[in-house]
């Protein structure tokens, strides 16, 4: 799952060049993802992992780094 998420971000937002992006770095602060990219990311997570991202889930604690996203998705899957 970690690889899938990371690969998706690198492919879509960094044009295939990871440029040393670490898994704990803030995607917002590093300019990797903007508000439209956020919509795209949410769409991807819902489709790829079959989870439902609620409005209240859309907070940086859940989505702002590769690690956060993995934890968030794992949490969602565990609840299902």
């Amino acid at each position, binding site marked *: 799952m970690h690889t899938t998420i990371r690969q998706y971000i690198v492919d879509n937002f960094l044009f295939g*060049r990871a440029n040393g992006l670490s898994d704990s770095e803030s995607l917002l602060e590093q300019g990797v993802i903007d508000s*439209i990219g956020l919509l795209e990311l949410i769409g991807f997570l819902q489709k790829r992992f079959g989870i439902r991202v609620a409005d209240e889930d859309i907070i940086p604690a859940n989505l702002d780094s590769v690690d956060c996203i993995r934890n968030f998705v794992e949490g969602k899957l565990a609840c299902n």
Partner: protein
Amino acid sequence: MQLDGFLESSARKFPGKTALVCGDQRLTYLQVEERANRLAHALLTGGVARGDRVVVWLENGVEAVVSIFAILKAGGVFCLVNPGVKPEKLGYIISNCRAKGLITGQAVPDSIRQCAVWSGKEDGGSPRPPGNRCIDVDLAALIYTSGSTGKPKGVMLTHLNMVTAANSITTYLENRADDVILNALPLSFDYGLYQVLMGFLFGGTVVLMKSFALTYVVLETLMREQVTGFPIVPSVAAMLLEMDLARYRFPALRYITSTGAVFPQSHLARLRAAFPGVRIYSMYGLTECKRVSYLPPDQLDVRPTSVGRGMPNQEIYLVDEEGRRLAPGRQGQLVVRGSHVMKGYWDSPEETEAVLKPGPLPDEKVLYSGDVFRTDEEGYFYFVGRGDDMIKVGAHRVYPREIEDVLHAMPEVAEAVVWPAPDPLLGQSIHAAVRLKEGARVTPQDVLFFCSKRLESYLVPKTVEFREELPKTATGKLSRRPSPGSFSRSALDIDAAAVARSLEETIRRQVRDQLRRRGVVVGLSGGVDSSVVAALAVRSLGKERVLGLLMPESDSSPDSLRLGRLVAEQLGVEYRVEDITPILTAAGCYSRRDEAVRSLIPEFGPGWLFKIAMQESPEEDSYVVYNLLARAPDLTERQVRLTYEAFQGIVAATSFKQRTRKMLEYYWADRMRYAVAGTPNRQEYDQGFFVKNGDGAADLKPIARLYKSQVYSLAEHLNLPDEVRLRPPTTDTYPLSQTQGELFFSVPWDVMDLCLFGKDHGAAAEEVADAAGMTCAQVRRVFRLIDTQRRAALYLRAEPLLAE
């Protein structure tokens, strides 16, 4: 190789070629070489030995050039001081570097301790070289630069440092022996100095002038000498553009270089028009390593604010606060690595240690610039700001301390502090805040006069204000920032009459002289921006040379058409109404858009209204989330979070509207030989709130540098109808009415103005928060959103890329 080898080698290869032109003097390489040799022998006789410093206090001229090479040939270290240097500073430099002597044509001030003096004209010695005394790791030059302690510090440069820099620069400029360089920059400024060094490296001709003061003489010299390379700074570009450049032709000119500040985009187009086919290099450098980067000329339109990706034979990268190297796309301190990096500051181990730090190899030192940059995805660097108090006034680096020391020396001054103020030409200018002693009776002019007697002109504050109290930091020290209370909405105040006059003048010049069109087309939306542009165009060109276009479509608010008409009629301009609904329908604007909406709300159809709105969230670290707000025919409302696909589908289809309007504006512009005026204000232009090739396209954008509140004050000055002046900014894009704030910014326009202004002028989040009535956390969030939008705007503003 040693630096003096540049001259010796060219004198061997091209003895009879003109090396140097100064006024009516023309010297061949052999003549310069022989004069330098004669002076070198005189210096040696006078006791100059390997490693001795010799200060040169001369205006640009043959003697200055001969002195540089003579000192090197004698094994010495040259140190050029600004011809306008004040006696006190000259004395400081001479004693600081323990100069062996001084070469000058002027009377030496009494205050300077006895030292040997030469005139640079000594011609008694042998014309043969005195023989090599140095190796390339010996010092060649000391270049004094402003220091944070208030005292100038001497940048120690070896032969290797300077030869390396000269080689890199001449490589990317593609210099050849038939290049003719015109240099009117002082040789005490490394940018000026290197013009001579590099010219002699490739065996070209250097035309040396004392200054740019007589602009027409500079232009005539460019033509007469068939100059191929012309180094300037942005303020000189502005001076050149004041001239009627159509009178001159420069067929030989190959390139113009500029450094010291980002090249103003407003100058760029005009400079291009005046110098067709000439390559323009925008560059960035530090005295500590001479040059850091240049922007390849073909990138100037793509990323005009970038300084490029470095230069040949060096490495640059960004580091975080712990000195760890950052990947592209990040922001951090710029580090420079290469054999052009200085050896340190003369006799200042602590200041040296602060900037020269261990590099990747054992014993290697790399240069920490103190400048904060960011990079884009392709590795281009963008200047963000300074990590310390330094002020960049054009190409000059200024530390407040030096000026504050002078202010404190004025008997009437109790306390003084200096900080940067924004300056349209120089990037920054110097502002002094002064608290006078009780009972002191002086004017700000007296303070400026006091400074001008003691400081070089670029160090004299541009503005002085008297305050009862000066801002202090938490620890009680003077703060080099305007105090929290002082950053307020009034920072955005303008003299509307003066701004209007200047814009009218600009529009006239742009339309008639640059674009060579007969008038302008302005799309009137009934909003304040387009109304102000139309009013300015009328005052600038006359009402008979302005065509207003009103282009409603089926989603437009009826107010838009009504107010657009009202403005056109008040201004007395011809106007046409072009209903673009049929074009949009035929192009599928509405059907494609509605289909995207239906992907979220399947029952969406006739009778429904909708808009895209940002979900308000005041949390500092919250995201901006876009929602679709729809109103059914029965007036019930629904709000759904947008998906990426729906968002893109709606936006792409809706962009037809602005693109269609632009198409019609150009239709009328073509028919009437008019230019098209765009109407973005600074918020929209800076943040990229326009449709590429839609409202983003235009031939001129008169108000793109004005904050929204400034546009409102212009509207008042221009007597636009109250209804237009008092109307809040709307988007008029979606069927449901909407303010710009709901779609573009998470804050109202006046707050956005403050945040944008504060961010651009280095105000702390606390200060902006105070002025805007927000929390610091909210301001920091807006600051971050501004950066995000700016990154997106790069694409929107980029012109088509050409393959070489």
